[in-house]
């Protein structure tokens, strides 16, 4: 690895570099900062209460609803949204579709951060988090537990994603030879990562298999794992489209203007993939529906609610994607992506919270503190994302390292 002759001066260079990179770039008083900072502070305050007075002091969780918004939204939904990383690395590194290469880095970064923050939110929900080391150090392995599997795979996947992203870090630090070495690990990390993703995306669904009597029959199926896996594909793709659209505006100076056209091509490709995955998903859903004679369940609120999810937020966006790809309508793709994401939120929350104990006399709904903490997690993730994107070659082309003081970079509204 890169061991320079003069380790001392290299180390000083490194410290100086880090110090300059730590400084905020751009304005501090932006709308995003003004909203996010108080929420993050409030969220931290809530967490102090949560860890001293117990989960019940800030959440609406109950004996009937042991898992609420933090699990149902942050973890279950958040991880589905992060599915883009395994799909894109599959397309680019396994299938070698170079066309999608420009979005690999940003997608992997998004995936990595999503896992760190959203899957990490799992620990906020643990009553006795210090015992989390038991299943990690092998003090106690619950081999029969789906959750055991899912949490191990989360951890390993984060490592795999970090390896996938590490060349960017090496490049940023100017460690050329390290970078070469890390690059050589990418394919292995990608293959390992895809495998782990397949397992834990479906594993999140498998968590609910034993809750059979508690989930409304329209949502419970022994095929939940497969449904979760397939839906994570279009959830991930839609998230890339949605997120890419926003960051192309916000970080536009990071991207070579010539590349905008490429990005449009990529978006249409992703939309096509999403349409196909949604069609397959819809097909599965229909099979289950017919096989289980579910039409008898349609004539009440839950039947209506089911149709809203499955027609309004799966079938409609599926057709919209297909239409948009054929007629090259970027706007329609974006709307479809948003509808799809809403549909995923609905689906995951239906299984974990809304249609869970659908007949309970007292229903669960999240407390404002649960929502604030969720927003805190999301905002914190965006802060870290922004910090990295503004410094490391994530969106801009590799090697052309614009100095941070380059006058060409104007502060867009979102920057620190």
């Amino acid at each position, binding site marked *: 690895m890169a061991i320079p002759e003069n380790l001392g001066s290299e180390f000083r260079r490194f410290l100086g570099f880090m110090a300059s990179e730590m400084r905020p770039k751009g304005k501090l008083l932006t709308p995003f900062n003004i909203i996010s900072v108080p929420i993050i502070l409030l969220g931290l305050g809530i967490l102090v209460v949560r860890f001293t007075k117990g989960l019940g002091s800030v959440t609406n969780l109950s*004996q009937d609803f042991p898992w609420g918004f933090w699990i149902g939204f942050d973890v279950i939904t958040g991880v589905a949204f992060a599915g883009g990383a395994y799909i894109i690395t599959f397309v680019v590194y396994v299938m070698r579709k170079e066309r999608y290469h420009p979005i690999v880095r940003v997608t992997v970064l998004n995936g990595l951060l999503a896992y760190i923050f959203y899957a990490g939110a799992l620990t906020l929900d643990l009553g*006795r988090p210090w015992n989390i080391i038991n299943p990690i150090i*092998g003090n106690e392995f619950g*081999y029969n537990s789906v959750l055991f599997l899912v949490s191990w795979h989360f951890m390993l996947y984060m490592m795999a994603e970090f390896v996938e992203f590490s060349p960017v870090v090496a490049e940023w630090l100017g460690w050329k030879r390290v970078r070469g070495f890390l690059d050589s690990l990418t394919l292995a990390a990608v293959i390992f990562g895809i495998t782990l993703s397949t397992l834990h995306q479906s*594993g999140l669904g498998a968590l609910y*298999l*034993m809750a059979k009597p508690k989930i409304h029959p329209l949502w419970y199926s022994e095929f939940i794992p497969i449904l979760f896996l397939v839906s994570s594909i279009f959830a991930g793709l839609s998230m890339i489209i949605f997120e890419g659209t926003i960051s192309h505006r916000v970080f536009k100076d990071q991207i070579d203007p010539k590349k905008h056209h490429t990005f449009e091509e990529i978006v249409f490709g992703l939309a096509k993939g999403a349409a196909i995955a949604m069609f397959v998903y819809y097909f599965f859903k229909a099979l289950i529906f017919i096989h289980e004679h579910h039409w008898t369940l349609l004539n009440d609120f839950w039947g209506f609610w089911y149709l809203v999810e499955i027609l309004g937020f799966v079938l409609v966006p599926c057709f919209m994607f297909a239409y948009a790809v054929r007629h090259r309508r970027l706007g329609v793709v974006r709307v479809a992506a948003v509808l799809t994401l809403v549909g995923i939120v609905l689906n995951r929350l239906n299984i974990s919270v809304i249609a869970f104990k659908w007949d309970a006399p007292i229903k669960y709904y999240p407390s404002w503190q649960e929502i604030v903490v969720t927003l805190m997690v999301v905002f914190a993730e965006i802060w870290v994302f922004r910090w990295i994107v503004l410094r490391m070659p994530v969106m801009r082309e590799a090697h052309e390292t614009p100095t941070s003081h380059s006058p060409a970079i104007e502060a867009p509204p979102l920057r620190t």
Partner: protein
Amino acid sequence: MKRRDFLKAAGVAGAALAGGPAEAEQPADPIEFAGVLVDTTRCIGCRSCEKACSEEHDLFVPDIANDNALAAERQTSETQWTIVNRYETSKGEVFVKKQCFHCWQPACAAACLTNAMYKTTNGPVIWRPSKCMGCRFCMVSCPFDIPKFEYHEWNPKIQKCNMCFERLQEGKRPACVQSCPTDALMFGMKRDLMEIARVRIYNHPERYVHKIYGEHEVGGTGWLYLSAVPFEEIGLRTDLGTTPYPEYTRDFLYGVPLVLFGLPALLLGLNLLSGDDDEA
């Protein structure tokens, strides 16, 4: 069980990350473990068992003479491992004790990623504080909604009946069984309890419905119930099926080692096959 053996071997090879269901540590035989027979036709609703349980386990001791708790249906809670409910049935008033059923193949233990929830070979399903991380997956999974969580503690515990595990080790019977003045509760091996229950039904066919709740429910439970009226009338769910709950995740868990070893090979193959570039 060839397939199972192969997959188990694969699971061991993949160690922790493969997971794969190792054989659950549970009584091998579905009836060779301890349980309790609850004869609801004998229960007078005195709630001595509630008091005895709470005293034994340092929980909230109810004032059974004055608290009028039978007025509404209750659930077990983080302060009471067992409760007695009163039901108005087609054959009049019936009292029913409720607690953990100590399933033969407990969903809670299969769910637990730290083995904190644990089915001992002699029967009781116990919770071990030093292992539990408070994820509450056991609560999500238990078909009877038995495990309860202390939501207002910084160091919360899962609370549920442990069939007086400590007392059993000393050769004593569970505190509730000991306290019952009418022998509505009887402690023993499930095999013997089943015999006794059948004899009671046989001797008094007019007194009982001809079914023993817990014989097959969720794969069989350690606690068994006899009743004069259909079990739905006394708050026992009859829609839970007879499949042991861990079975529902078994297929998924068996698939894991296959995916873990098969998929990388497939991906590598795809990678070698695909051309370097697609200018499509």
